[in-house]
Every structure is written in C-alpha cells, then in structure tokens.
C-alpha cells in the first residue's frame, strides 16, 4: 500500500512532463476513439445504404446471372408469376419482396447522354423493401404507377432535368436490338446512396419488360427480412428452390456489396494500425517518462535500496506511477472521446471537400459521414491503455531499480 501511495505521490513531481505525457496519451486515445467511431459509422452507413437502396437483405437470382450481374445482362432471367411471389412472401422471416428488371441504358435529355442503370420495379413492392420513398425532393413513388420515371438528384442536376421533363432511355432488348423507353420524370430523390443518386433510373416494371422484350421475366428479386432473420430466410429459400427444382439461388447483401466488405476489412486493418500507433505513442511517452524519472531519482533509488527495498519493490513504485499516467491519460482521452464521438454522431463530418460522392472511393455514401457509439471501445481502449502503460514501464523501471546501490546513493 505504501508503494502505491509513493508511486501516486510521485505523479506530483515533474508536473509539466507528466501533464505533457498525459495529454499526449489523452489525444492519442481521443484520436483512436474518434476514428473508430467514424470508421464504424462509415461501415454502418455503407451497409445501410446498400441494404436500403440497392439490395435489400437478400437477393434472388439465377447463379449465371449473378456471376455477370455487373454487366446487366438480359439472360438467365427469372420467370415472375404470382405463384412464385406468393410462395416467396410466405418464406420465414421475409417481410417484403421486390421483383426487379435491371438493365443497361443510355439516358438522353435531348442534348446530353449518360450511361445509367435502369431498374424496372413495382412501386408497391419496391416500397416494402427499399427506403427510397422517404427521400423524394420532388414528386413521389406514385409517379411509377403513372408510367413515369424516378431519378436521382445528382443525375437531375448533371443533365439539367426537372420534374415533368421528358427523357429517352436507349436500351438493347433481349434480342440485342435497340429500343427506347420514353418517359416523363415523375420524381427526383436525394438518397444517401451515390448509385441511386447518380446512376439509377426507376421505371415501371411492366414498361421495362415490354420495351426490353422479356415478357414476364425479371433479373432478380430483392427481399427484406425481419431483423436477424437473414440466415433463416436463406435456408428456407434454398429449401424451397430445391423442392420446386428452380435454378435459383439466394444471396445476402454481403455478397452483393464487395466494396463494403472490402471497406470493413480495410477498416479492421486501419483501426488496428491506428491502435498500434496510439499504443506506441503511449509506450514512448511512458518509457521516456520513467527513464527520465529514473535518472533524476538515482540517489533516491540508492536510498531505497539502502533501506532494504528489493528491486521489484522499486519497480512496483515506478509501475504505479506509469499506471497513474495511463489512467489519467486514458480518462481524459475517453472524456475527449465522449465529446468528440457525441459530436460526430450528431453532426457528422462533411466530405464535400472530396467531392462529397465517395462512391469513387468504393464507399457508397454521399456528403456526410456520421459516427457511431461503441461503449465497449471506450472500456477496451481505457483498460488496454492502462495495461500497456504498466507493461511499458517494466523495462525502464527495472533499469532504474537495478542500479548499483553505492553508485546510486552517491550519484550527483
């Protein structure tokens, strides 16, 4: 107990140096907590964007179509009928189902042309799976029922389009002949998803099927499941496909979102790297502090040895001191982290300086990135920080305590 008291009292010596070390550790901790919150937020937003605007929780497609889905082929399609729809709706965990016909098109406004992803949807079904309806800045989803199209705000801005304007979608039919879909813009959405905002054009499914000459076929189905029911639904769906002999397969959003998964992997290594730097900063600070303290207190260490203190007892005094620095640094860092993370959760950080659209970097987020709360990270970094402070003090403390008592006592 006395060693603990002495170690803690030693914190009051060299106040300026200790405060600097504590602040360095605190800012390193704060940086880590802030970055971790941002990166988690980015991942969470990316996942939500993918699920809420592009894929739903599960997608169903022909395996061959799935392989080539980025090229938007009109082969290996699904024959869509009410029986299949009814069966799939009854699958365990499924709460929404949207048939889609995805196709490649060139959108022409009469002056400019732009390559886009056309998606034929049934508004009523689409709304069960996706959240696009909540992001209209002009018009509404009912535009699709009136055989009008819905486009993203960015696309509208680029092509100088507004509601009620007419556009032509130049498409290739299933037989590879050219055709057009002439539609009036009935809605403009501004979602958090760059693909939806920049490149997607929603049109009525029936219209798309007719112009692409695919009859009652669709390219894939997007499903929304109840929370945590993805795996159950997939198993049920696979069973259903086997039972009916359908050449279909179900895929989770994870399989659709390679970029997001890559982001998550990069995030993990990024966070690991940040954590390593943070811990390294803490270690260097503590080691520097203990070495300097050991040098300054040489004759005091000699006196402790003369009093009969064993080396590990002297080491313990230094370890208490280092742990104290770690605790203060960690505590202040966590307090700063609370403030910083709270701010970034509420306000987010605008990435307009990067052009705002981060899909170019593989991150399906527009404009702001919001942080997330992760209470366990605070505990984790706090206790890990203390542990590392304690651990990094051992070697310099042992170096200090191992001095020859005679040389130490008479050291000036």
């Amino acid at each position, binding site marked *: 107990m*006395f060693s603990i*008291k*002495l170690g803690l*009292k*030693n914190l*009051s*010596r060299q106040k300026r140096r200790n405060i600097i070390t504590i602040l360095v550790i605190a800012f390193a901790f704060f940086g880590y907590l802030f970055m971790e919150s941002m990166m988690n937020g980015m991942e969470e937003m990316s996942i939500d964007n993918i699920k809420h605007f592009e894929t739903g929780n599960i997608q169903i497609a022909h395996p061959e179509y799935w392989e080539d889905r980025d090229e938007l082929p009109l082969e290996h399609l699904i024959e869509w009928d009410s029986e299949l729809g009814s069966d799939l709706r009854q699958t365990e965990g499924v709460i929404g189902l949207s048939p889609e016909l995805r196709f490649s098109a060139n959108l022409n406004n009469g002056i400019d042309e732009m390559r886009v992803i056309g998606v034929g949807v049934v508004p009523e079904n689409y709304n069960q799976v996706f959240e696009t309806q909540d992001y209209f800045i002009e018009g509404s989803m009912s535009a699709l029922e009136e055989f009008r199209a819905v486009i993203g705000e960015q696309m509208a801005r680029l092509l100088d389009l507004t509601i009620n304007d007419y556009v032509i979608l130049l498409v290739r039919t299933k037989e590879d002949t050219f055709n057009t879909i002439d539609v009036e813009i009935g809605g403009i959405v501004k979602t958090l998803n760059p693909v939806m905002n920049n490149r997607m054009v929603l049109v009525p499914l029936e219209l798309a099927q007719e112009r692409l000459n695919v009859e009652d076929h669709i390219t894939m189905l997007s499903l929304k499941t109840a929370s945590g029911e993805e795996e159950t639904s997939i198993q049920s769906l696979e069973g259903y496909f086997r039972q009916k002999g359908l050449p279909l397969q179900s895929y989770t959003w994870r399989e659709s979102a390679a970029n997001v998964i890559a982001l998550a992997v990069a995030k993990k290594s990024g966070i690991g790297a940040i954590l390593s730097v943070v811990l390294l900063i803490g270690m260097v600070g503590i080691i520097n502090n203990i070495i300097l303290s050991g040098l300054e207190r040489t*004759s*005091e260490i*000699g*006196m402790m*040895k*003369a*009093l*009969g*203190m*064993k*080396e590990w007892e002297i080491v313990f005094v230094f370890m208490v001191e280092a742990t104290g620095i770690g605790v203060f640094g960690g505590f202040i860092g966590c307090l700063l982290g609370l403030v910083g993370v709270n701010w970034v959760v509420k306000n987010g950080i605008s990435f307009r300086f990067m052009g705002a659209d981060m899909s170019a970097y593989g991150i399906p987020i527009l404009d702001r990135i919001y942080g997330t709360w992760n209470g366990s990270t605070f505990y984790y970094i706090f206790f890990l920080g203390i542990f590392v402070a304690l651990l990094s003090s051992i070697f310099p403390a042992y170096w200090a305590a191992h001095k020859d*008592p*005679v040389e130490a*006592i*008479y050291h000036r």
Partner: protein
Amino acid sequence: MPLLELKKVKKIYQQGKIKVPALRGIDMVVEEGEFTTIFGPSGSGKTTLLNMIGCLDTPTEGEIHLNGNKISDLSRKELAMTRRFNIGFIFQSYNLIPVLTAYENVEFAIRLIGRLAEKEMREKVLDMLAEVGLKGLENRRPNELSGGEKQRVAIARALVKEPKIILADEPTANLDSETAQDVIQNMVKMNRELGTTFIFSTHDPQIMEYARRLINLKDGMISVDKKVDLRKE
C-alpha cells in the same frame, strides 16, 4: 559475540586496466552499543568501509560478520534483506523523499519491516520524530525543513526500525557547526537511550569529540583504533 567483525577485508576497484585498492586489509571488531567515529583524509576508504559494513557493497577479499552471520558473500536479495532489518543509514545529503512528509519518510522505513500494527506503527513514528525534536513538524515536506531538521528526519528514519547498527556517512558535512553539534548530540542521545550502535565517518574534529572510539583510516588501512573517554555529551 561481537556485533560486527571484519577480517582482513580488502576492496579493490577496477578502473579500466588499473586496480585501485580502497581497503587494504581491515580487521575490526565492534561491540553492541558502541559510538564509533571513523576519520581520515579524503580517499582513505571511510565511505568504502561503511558501504561494506552496510551491505551496500561486497569486499574483494576477507569476511564480514554481522550479529554472527557472515554477510560478505550474500546475494543481492539477501543483502537487501539484511539492510532492511539490521542496518540504518544516515547520509550526508539526507536522501529524503521530497514528495513525502517528515512523518511519511520515517513511516516508509518501518513499513518495509511490516511487523507492527497500524496504530503501533503510527505511535512509534510520532515518538521517534518527537525524540529527535521534530514534534509539530510531522506534516512538513523536506523542502519545508532546514538542513538540521532534514538530518533529524533521516536519523529518525534510521532509528525507527530499531536496527542493530546505524551507519552515518559524514552526517554533518552539509550543516553549519551549530546544527552539526545539535545533530550529533541527537545521535549520542539515541545511542545512550536506545543502545543502538553508531558508526559514523567525519572530517570534523569538533564532531569527533563526541565519539567513544576513534578509528583513523589511512590509505585503506587502520592506522589508529582507540577508545576514548567521554569528552562531550
């Protein structure tokens, strides 16, 4: 059985390729309760001898027995334990811990022994501080004490654990003559009241007047070893 016995103790320091003998064969016996002064010019080996007796250093040759136990070939850990329980030190520059109060500096030594209950320990520390004339100054830190008061704290720290022997290396060297007399009188008092054995080194002829045994070291050897009548108290 003598409290301390040194038999042909030699200490040779290696400085590069040169061997520097600090002690050239010391034979010495100290009985319990003695108040002994080691004096001699600088470099005569006073500090080296005290370090050997105090288990801070080991001799190159020879044997040292403390309380019947041979201490000259103990391990570092065993030496630390011997210092903890048997030896008290008083240093020229006090070597107090600046962040601790006078009370805590003394408490530190007795806590290492760890034999007493909390209340008993507190009483003992306070009694010892009162004995050395520091009553009322218990809560002062070293930087709030004069040189003489600091040295009294060091004396209390050395005495509080009731060691067999107290070694003081020029304890008055940093003090003015009046304070030095005061400190040495304090040591004499403790020697007389508690029966603790004191061995201290000094240059100061005034201080030597308090000793009951004088050992003169010259070139690492004892040139004079004589018991003297009490001249001052």
